[in-house]
C-alpha cells in the first residue's frame, strides 16, 4: 500500500481527462464520476491520515530517485490534515454545484474541479519547492477556468485581473526559486533546510532576498494585506460554489508559509531571523482589520463573503506569524474552522443570490427564507467567531497563544475589535436581507433588479441544503470534538517545530 501516497494526485488526474474525453456529452455520468472520485478521494485521504496520525513521516520517491535528486511526496501530520480537509470540503461543494445546477451553466465544470483538486492535493503533499510551483500552476490553471465558468462580462473582467495578478505571482515565485537555487544548489525542502543551516551568516544576502520573495508569493496566495486586493472582486464574481472551493486556496498560501518558514527558514536560522516576525504580524493585523471593515461596508453579498474570508485569513496569519508552537497549534485548529466557515458562507450567499440577486437590500421574503436565514445566521456566527461554534474556540486558542508576545495588546485589540466589526457587518446584512423585507409592500422592492425567482427550476432543490448542512455539521463536529482536534493540532505543531525527523526521513538518513 505504499503507493497510496500518490493516489490523491493520480486519482483526480485520471478522472479529469476521462470526463473531458469520454463523458463530454453525458452530464449525468460526469456527475457520477466526479462524485465517485470525490468520495474515493475522501476515503484515500482519511486512510493516509490514519497512517500519519502516529507521527511517522512517509516519503514517496517519484521514479524511485533518492530524495535530493528526485522529486518526493511527503506525508506528515500537517499535509495529512490538509488533504483530508480538502477532500472533505470538496464533497459538499460538489454536491452543491450539482444540486444548484451550477455545473450546467458552462462546459467542463467537473473536469476543472478534478484538476483543481489534483493541484491542491499535490501542493500539500510535495516535498520539493519547484514541484510546489508546478502544483501551484496546476491548481491556478484549473481555477482560472472555474473562475470564469458560466461567463458574463463582470466575471470575465474579474477573471482577467485574477489571472494577471496570479501570473505575476508565479513569475515572482520562479525568481525566488532561482535565487534560492543559486545560493544553495538544491530545491528539495529537506535538503534546503540542511544547506541553509550550513551557510555562514555573512554570506546570506541573496538567501534573504530569496526568502523575502518567497514570502511575498505565499502572501499573495494567502491574501495578506497589501497583496489582498485581487481577492474580493475575484471571489465575489466567481460562481459561489467555486468560491467555496477557493476557500482552501488561500489556505495553500498559509500552509506554504507555515511549512517553509518552520522547515527551511526555521526560527533558529540566523540568516532570516526577525524577517517574518517584524513584517508578517503587522500585515496580518491589518488584514484582519481590512477584512472586518470590508464585511461592514459590502453592498453585495458575494463581496461580504469574500471580505469575511479575508478577515479569517487575518486571524489565521496572526497565529502563524508568531512562530511559536502553541500559536501554530491554534492556527491549525482555526485553519480547519475558517475553511469550512468561509465555504459555508459562500454557499449560503449563493442560495440568497439565486433568489434575490446579489445586492444587500431589503427585499420581499424569498422561498425557503426560514432555512436560509438560519444557515446565514450559523455561518455569520462561525465566521465572526462567536460562541457556540468552533470559531469562538479557535479565536480563544489564538488569543491564549499570543499572551506572551510582545505585541499582545495589539493582537488582542485587533482580534476582538475585528470580531465586533465583523458581527456588526453580518448582523446588518442579515437583518437587511431577512427581516426588513417583511414590512415592504409588494411594489416597493426598490430600484434593484427583479428577483430571478421565476427562472428557478420548479423542482424543490434539496441537494444544496444537504451540502450546506454538511458543512455546518463539520463545524459542529469540530466544536464537539474540540478536545481531540486540538490534541491533533498540538501534536502537528510539535512535529512542525521538530523538523529533524522530517529531514532525516526525506533524505533517507534513518538508521535502519
Amino acid at each position: 500500500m505504499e503507493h497510496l501516497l500518490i493516489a490523491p494526485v493520480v486519482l483526480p488526474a485520471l478522472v479529469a481527462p476521462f470526463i473531458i474525453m469520454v463523458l463530454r456529452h453525458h452530464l449525468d455520468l460526469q456527475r457520477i464520476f466526479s462524485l465517485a472520485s470525490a468520495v474515493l478521494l475522501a476515503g484515500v485521504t482519511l486512510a493516509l491520515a490514519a497512517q500519519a496520525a502516529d507521527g511517522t513521516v512517509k516519503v514517496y520517491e517519484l521514479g524511485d530517485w533518492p530524495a535530493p535528486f528526485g522529486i518526493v511526496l511527503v506525508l506528515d501530520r500537517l499535509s495529512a490534515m490538509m488533504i483530508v480537509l480538502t477532500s472533505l470540503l470538496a464533497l459538499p461543494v460538489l454536491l452543491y454545484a450539482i444540486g444548484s445546477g451550477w455545473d450546467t451553466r458552462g462546459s467542463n465544470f467537473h473536469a476543472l474541479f478534478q484538476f483543481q483538486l489534483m493541484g491542491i492535493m499535490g501542493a500539500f503533499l510535495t516535498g520539493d519547492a519547484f514541484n510546489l510551483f508546478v502544483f501551484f500552476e496546476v491548481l491556478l490553471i484549473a481555477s482560472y477556468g472555474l473562475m470564469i465558468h458560466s461567463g458574463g462580462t463582470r466575471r470575465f473582467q474579474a477573471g482577467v485581473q485574477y489571472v494577471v495578478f496570479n501570473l505575476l505571482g508565479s513569475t515572482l515565485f520562479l525568481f525566488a526559486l532561482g535565487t534560492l537555487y543559486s545560493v544553495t544548489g538544491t530545491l528539495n525542502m529537506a535538503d534546503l533546510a540542511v544547506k541553509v543551516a550550513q551557510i555562514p551568516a555573512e554570506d546570506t544576502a541573496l538567501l534573504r532576498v530569496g526568502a523575502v520573495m518567497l514570502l511575498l508569493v505565499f502572501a499573495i496566495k494567502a491574501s495578506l494585506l497589501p497583496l489582498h486586493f485581487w481577492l474580493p472582486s475575484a471571489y465575489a464574481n466567481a460562481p459561489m460554489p467555486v468560491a467555496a472551493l477557493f476557500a482552501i486556496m488561500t489556505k495553500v498560501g498559509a500552509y506554504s508559509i507555515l511549512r517553509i518558514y518552520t522547515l527551511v527558514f526555521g526560527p533558529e536560522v540566523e540568516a532570516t531571523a526577525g524577517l517574518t516576525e517584524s513584517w508578517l504580524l503587522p500585515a496580518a493585523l491589518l488584514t484582519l482589520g481590512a477584512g472586518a471593515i470590508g464585511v461592514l461596508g459590502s453592498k453585495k453579498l458575494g463581496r461580504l463573503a469574500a471580505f469575511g474570508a479575508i478577515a479569517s485569513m487575518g486571524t489565521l496569519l496572526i497565529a502563524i506569524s508568531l512562530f511559536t508552537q502553541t500559536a501554530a497549534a491554534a492556527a491549525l485548529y482555526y485553519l480547519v474552522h475558517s475553511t469550512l466557515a468561509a465555504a459555508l458562507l459562500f454557499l449560503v450567499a449563493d442560495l440568497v443570490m439565486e433568489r434575490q440577486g446579489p445586492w444587500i437590500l431589503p427585499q420581499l421574503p424569498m422561498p425557503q427564507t426560514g432555512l436560509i436565514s438560519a444557515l446565514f445566521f450559523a455561518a455569520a456566527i462561525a465566521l465572526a467567531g462567536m460562541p457556540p461554534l468552533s470559531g469562538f474556540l479557535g479565536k480563544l486558542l489564538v488569543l491564549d497563544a499570543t499572551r506572551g508576545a510582545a505585541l499582545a495588546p495589539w493582537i488582542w485589540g485587533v482580534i476582538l475589535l475585528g470580531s465586533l466589526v465583523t458581527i456588526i457587518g453580518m448582523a446588518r446584512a442579515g437583518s437587511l436581507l431577512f427581516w426588513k423585507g417583511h414590512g415592504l409592500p409588494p411594489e416597493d422592492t426598490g430600484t434593484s433588479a427583479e428577483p430571478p425567482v421565476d427562472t428557478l427550476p420548479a423542482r424543490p432543490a434539496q441537494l444544496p441544503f444537504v451540502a450546506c448542512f454538511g458543512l455546518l455539521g463539520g463545524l459542529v463536529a469540530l466544536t464537539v470534538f474540540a478536545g481531540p482536534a486540538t490534541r491533533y493540532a498540538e501534536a502537528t505543531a510539535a512535529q512542525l517545530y521538530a523538523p529533524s525527523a522530517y529531514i532525516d526521513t526525506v533524505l533517507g538518513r534513518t538508521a535502519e
Partner: protein
Amino acid sequence: MELLVASAVGILTAAGVYLILRRRSFPVILGLSLLTYAVNVFLFATGRLVTGAPPILNKYEEVAYTDPLPQALVLTAIVISFGMTAVVVMIALGAFLSSRDDGTAMPVETDGAEEDA
C-alpha cells in the same frame, strides 16, 4: 557575459513591469511575456554561466559540463508560461468582446442599477 545576461534580465523585467502598469490587456499580456522571458534567462544564470559545455556529466573522462537542473527548470517554466499566456489571451479576449473595453481594472460598481452577474 555576466554583465550582458544581468542587464538583459534587468531590462526585460523593467520593460515587463512598465507594460503591466499600463493596465490595458494587450500591453499587460506583452508585459507578462517579457517577465517570463526575464525569469527564464534568470533561471539559466542560477546554474552559473558556462560557455559551450553540455549539461551532461561524463564519468569516463574529465570534461567541462554545465549544471543540468536549471535547464530542466527552464524547460518546465517555458511550457507552463506558454500555456498561461494562451489562457490569459483567451480570457482577455472574452472580457474585451463582451464589454468592448480592454482595461484590466474593474469598473466601479453602481448600487442597484445595472446587473449582469
